[in-house]
């Protein structure tokens, strides 16, 4: 392992050369930042991973059941398990998806589940990302570079090879493909994760396209290949959010989408990964109900643990939030990427009063969680090992079988006082090693 640490600078240099960057818009200006790589890996034992694998498979299966149900029969609402408000007022809910069955019934093909480990070793789910979770390419390329820098490290240790991600992803696309080529639809090179889009296209053999390259004719989706020949598309792994996907069905001002794409999808003539409308299931308010979903759809107890979560929507939870305000973290359900997260004890008296007034006025807008004292992971900073907060994004791919990738993106906060690890907030990343035994 220390070999790799010695090579850390060289690896970071390589990452920069490969364009492993993260684009950030700040004050209307596009800036590309390197996504700093720390060479000390997060290590997950075989037993731990076996537990996580089972738990994540169960969780994603239940979430897919929920997505299929909520856009058709709505049994879970009718049976009173989830209040209708939490579905219909979710900004991720799309009425356009009502009655539309995704190919082979899978809505969340690529799920990014964020976890943290507390000091007592318990893993907690922080959030489910079922729309366009990004990040798999970073540990993928980092592993590749590490193996080149220090091959012996990987020869001596029994570490699960994570370079099969592209195989899993291709299998996932092929499984739902309705006939035609696989494409990865990117908004373009100014997108935060453009490196990832191009890298995954290269690795899976999918065609990297922008909205302008795709077009609909009658009931099918096509693109023009390099010879100028029209080729049919059977699966679109889109890296564009729902509202921009199709200007004829969603936001008309979208210039990065494909007109009529959704009409073709509705007829079952192309697969879209992940399915539109998934936002209703990874809403921070719906998160609270995931263990209930597992029980409801699968009849099993939920293996994964949610962080203790309170919905001010319920009166008793509101009381808890007000009583324990200094000990909790408040999250705005409409925000993502580490924005809209407030720690009760970090507010001034005035800010606190304003926040409480806001929660009382708009209880559905917020969730509150106990602050989990999660373990720090060491990183190297100026030649020294220092502890930093870190989380783990596990990738779960659904293609008939539900497959948990034996790796994951470990993100850490570079600021010693911060709990927020999101890349858009300037965090770094580590490789995640899953031991074979």
């Amino acid at each position: 392992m220390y070999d790799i640490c010695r090579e850390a600078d060289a690896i970071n240099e390589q990452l920069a050369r490969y364009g492993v960057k993260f684009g950030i818009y700040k004050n209307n200006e596009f800036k590309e930042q390197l996504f700093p790589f720390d060479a000390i890996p997060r290590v997950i034992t075989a037993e731990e991973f076996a537990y996580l694998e089972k738990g994540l498979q169960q969780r994603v299966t239940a979430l897919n059941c929920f997505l299929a149900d909520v856009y058709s029969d709505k049994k879970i609402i009718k049976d009173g398990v989830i209040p209708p408000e939490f579905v219909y007022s979710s900004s991720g809910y799309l009425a356009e998806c009502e009655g539309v069955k995704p190919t082979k019934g899978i809505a969340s093909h690529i799920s990014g589940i964020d976890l943290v480990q507390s000091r007592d070793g318990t893993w907690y789910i922080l959030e489910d990302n079922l729309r366009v979770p990004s990040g798999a390419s970073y540990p993928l390329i980092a592993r590749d570079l590490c193996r080149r820098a220090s091959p012996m490290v990987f020869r001596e240790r029994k570490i699960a090879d994570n370079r099969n991600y592209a195989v899993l992803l291709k299998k996932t696309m092929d499984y739902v493909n309705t006939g035609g080529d696989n494409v990865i639809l990117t908004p373009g090179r100014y997108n935060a994760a453009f490196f990832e889009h191009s890298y995954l296209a290269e690795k899976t053999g999918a065609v990297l396209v922008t909205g302008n390259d795709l077009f609909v004719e009658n009931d099918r989706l096509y693109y023009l290949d390099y010879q100028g020949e029209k080729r049919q598309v059977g699966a679109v792994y889109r890296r564009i959010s729902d509202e921009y996907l199709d200007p004829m069905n969603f936001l008309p001002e979208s210039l990065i989408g494909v007109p009529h794409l959704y009409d073709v999808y509705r007829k079952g003539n192309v697969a879209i990964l992940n399915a539109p409308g998934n936002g209703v299931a990874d809403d921070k308010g719906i998160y609270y109900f995931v263990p209930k979903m597992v029980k409801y759809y699968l009849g099993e107890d939920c293996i994964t643990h949610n962080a203790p979560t309170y919905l001010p929507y319920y009166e008793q939870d509101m009381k808890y939030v007000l009583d324990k305000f200094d000990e909790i973290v408040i999250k705005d359900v409409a925000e993502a990427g580490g924005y809209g997260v407030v720690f009760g004890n970090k507010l001034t008296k005035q800010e606190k009063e304003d926040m409480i007034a806001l929660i009382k006025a708009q209880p559905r807008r917020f969730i509150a969680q106990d602050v989990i004292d999660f373990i720090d992971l060491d990183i190297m900073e100026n030649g020294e090992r220092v502890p930093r907060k870190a989380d783990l994004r596990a990738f779960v791919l659904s293609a008939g079988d539900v497959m948990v990738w034996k790796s994951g993106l470990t993100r850490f906060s570079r600021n010693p006082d911060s709990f927020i690890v999101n890349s858009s907030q300037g965090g770094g990343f580590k490789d995640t090693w899953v031991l074979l035994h």
Partner: protein
Amino acid sequence: MSETAACFNPLEFEFFYEMQSEFDREIEGHNFRLMCFPINDQRQKVQSISYEILPHTWLSEGCDSFGNLYVYGRADGRHDSFTVRVHGIVETGRSCFEAYEDGLSDLFHHFTPATAPGDFAAAYFREIVPAGCNLRLCGRQNPGFSQVYAPKGCAGIQVQGCRLKQAQTLRQGLQEDSAPEKVRKIREKDSSCTGTEQDIPQTAGKQDDYETALYFMRRIHEDFSYQKGVSDTNTTSEQTFERRAGVCQDFAHVLITLCRMVGIPARYAAGILEGEGETHAWAEILSDGKWYGLDPTNNCAVDGRYIKFSQGRDCRDCLVNRGIYFNLARETQKIHVYAGTRK
């Protein structure tokens, strides 16, 4: 369905819908989506339909989540005009309601950006609900509204949708107090509008929601003035509550907002009305498990003279013509609609 038969005599309509767009310079890469085709439901049955869309490179048909039919396509070449002609024969008035079966009633409880109430909606509500009446905005806040659609600076306005049960009790209060007389009057007035007493649905059982909505409709018709040119398809009901003026689309939105505020599911309907003119819009409310059409612009219940093209949460779901194209052209649109009973 003997009950249905008692309501109306079916009418057979022949209708034309014609839209002519002229662009002051040539456009290209024109994608369009048209929703001007009568749907088959309990109330109306399409006998025949034909359409012509010029120019086009290809055309295809689809059906959306609300059961609306649409035609979509693309016109590749440069062109400076776009024509849509639809002709059909529809049997209407087969029933005065449509049984609720699509499982989406919860959805129509919830506000959308175009129908979310604000200060002006709340003020109007206070104005039209008689003093001493129990009908009021109640209990728990409608979280959906405040979270997603509250405009900045008016978070937590005390406009609250409510749970159905509470709303119903309150509506009973309205009827027991001061409203029955008013409701009866609406019924009389309504009858004169639509011809016979039978035109007002006489379903057995609970009529609370229907009567509350009728009351709202009548008040809207009295208090709002019909005025062209003050609104467009982006106008919200809150803006109309402030302006107290608009066209059929705005009247429908206002009725939908009021109904949803007291927990009655309501939806938007677009289509055409007997005679010559433009397209029309009205609202539908869910009462006793059935959807009834109410037209606040004309202050009457929807009957066999209405041909429905589409239904949805608000006008955004029912846009007759959606299009995108390249070039900054100015578009002038002429719409001509004709619907008449067949002799």
